[in-house]
């Protein structure tokens, strides 16, 4: 992902760098930095906004974003951090960009998103810390993968009004355009088991984004919609592919937790209930995807690998 972004930025600098104050002489050190080490997920948000500004011929906005890009690129991210949905935590203008990336392309669905208060941010941060510690012990491969894929957990408040039938209350979200970040509605996470499964869920979306560089994993047209095992609204086949693949990894995580001796009796009950539910959802997704998906080459390879690894 970082290499693809570096290539793209280099080509953009050569193509329009002089027009937007991002000439190759300024871009090259940043690109070297980008290739060398992990960067803040917000960099991808700024990149996306910059391309969009250039595509609509807004040179002033593109230039301002190029400046932001330089600042964001200089920030090195060493390890997973838990942050609030604020510009203080994410960077100037980033809350609006994150919000647009998560919610902006589907005007028919309203997703309430807000920052949390300091007490909730602290509680969520502590829960994530103890959850990662649990995974380190009970499922070290999953913990390792999580730490590679997720650099930033953005804690959000998401509560739909009871009378708003078009609003979608978010549990968690991730986007190709925020690669390395995930949004988490911490109010839905009260314990280590649900937190572990949610973190794995969103991280594995990131894995699939990385495999395909954001391209769909199926050739089915986006406007083809199917019933989803995970959501009440109708979804495109690419979403169903993601859902099914992600469910397989969530099940794997739960099985590893249950096979460890790290869970309390209450957590074992919660994990068993979640496992039964997700296995049923996985089977439903598998039927739909197998029957109707027209895989891309990468999609076929990923789906085959998932089936090989899945013995439930």
């Amino acid at each position, binding site marked *: 992902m970082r290499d693809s972004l570096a290539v793209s930025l280099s080509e953009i600098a050569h193509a329009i760098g002089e027009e937007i104050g991002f000439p190759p002489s300024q871009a090259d050190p940043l690109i070297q930095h980008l290739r060398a080490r992990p960067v803040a997920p917000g960099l991808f948000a700024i990149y996306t906004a910059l391309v969009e500004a*250039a595509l609509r011929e807004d040179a002033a906005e593109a230039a301002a974003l190029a400046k932001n890009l330089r600042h964001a690129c200089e920030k090195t991210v060493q390890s997973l951090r838990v942050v609030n949905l604020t510009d203080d935590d994410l960077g100037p203008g980033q809350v609006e960009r994150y919000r647009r990336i998560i919610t902006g392309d589907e005007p028919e669905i309203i997703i309430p998103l807000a920052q949390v208060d300091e007490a909730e941010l602290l509680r969520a941060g502590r829960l994530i810390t103890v959850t990662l510690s649990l995974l380190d012990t009970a499922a070290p491969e999953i913990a390792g993968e999580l730490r590679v894929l997720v650099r930033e957990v953005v804690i959000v408040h998401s509560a739909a009004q009871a009378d708003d039938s078009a609003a979608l209350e978010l549990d968690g979200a991730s986007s190709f355009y925020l690669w390395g970040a995930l949004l988490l509605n911490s109010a839905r996470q009260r314990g280590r088991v649900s937190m572990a499964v949610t973190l794995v869920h969103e991280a594995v979306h990131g894995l699939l984004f990385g495999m395909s560089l954001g391209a*769909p994993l199926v050739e089915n047209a986006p406007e083809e919609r199917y019933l989803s095992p995970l959501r009440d609204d109708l979804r495109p086949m690419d979403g169903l592919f993601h859902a099914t693949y992600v469910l397989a990894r969530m099940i794997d995580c739960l099985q590893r937790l249950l096979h460890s001796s790290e869970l309390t009796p209450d957590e074992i009950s919660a994990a068993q209930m979640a496992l039964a539910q997700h296995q049923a959802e996985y089977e439903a997704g598998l039927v739909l995807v197998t029957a109707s998906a027209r895989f891309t080459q990468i999609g076929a390879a990923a789906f085959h690998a998932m089936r090989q690894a899945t013995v439930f």
Partner: protein
Amino acid sequence: MSQPAKSLSAALASCKLVGFLANGATKDNAAKIGSSKIGGVKPPAPPAAGLTKDSSAKIGTVKPGINKGPL
């Protein structure tokens, strides 16, 4: 005589763009959103009636163009 302003979008057409379709006009495949609750109790009505959870029927066009692709 001054040069006409360079078209940024035309210049970008020859660039590799991460996550954008080949023509650079639209983004491709963005957010995955997990939700267990839509608007309190009632999800948006599907565009076709008579479906059950057992149906895998394709549904007509919801929105052409950008595939945002949440779960």
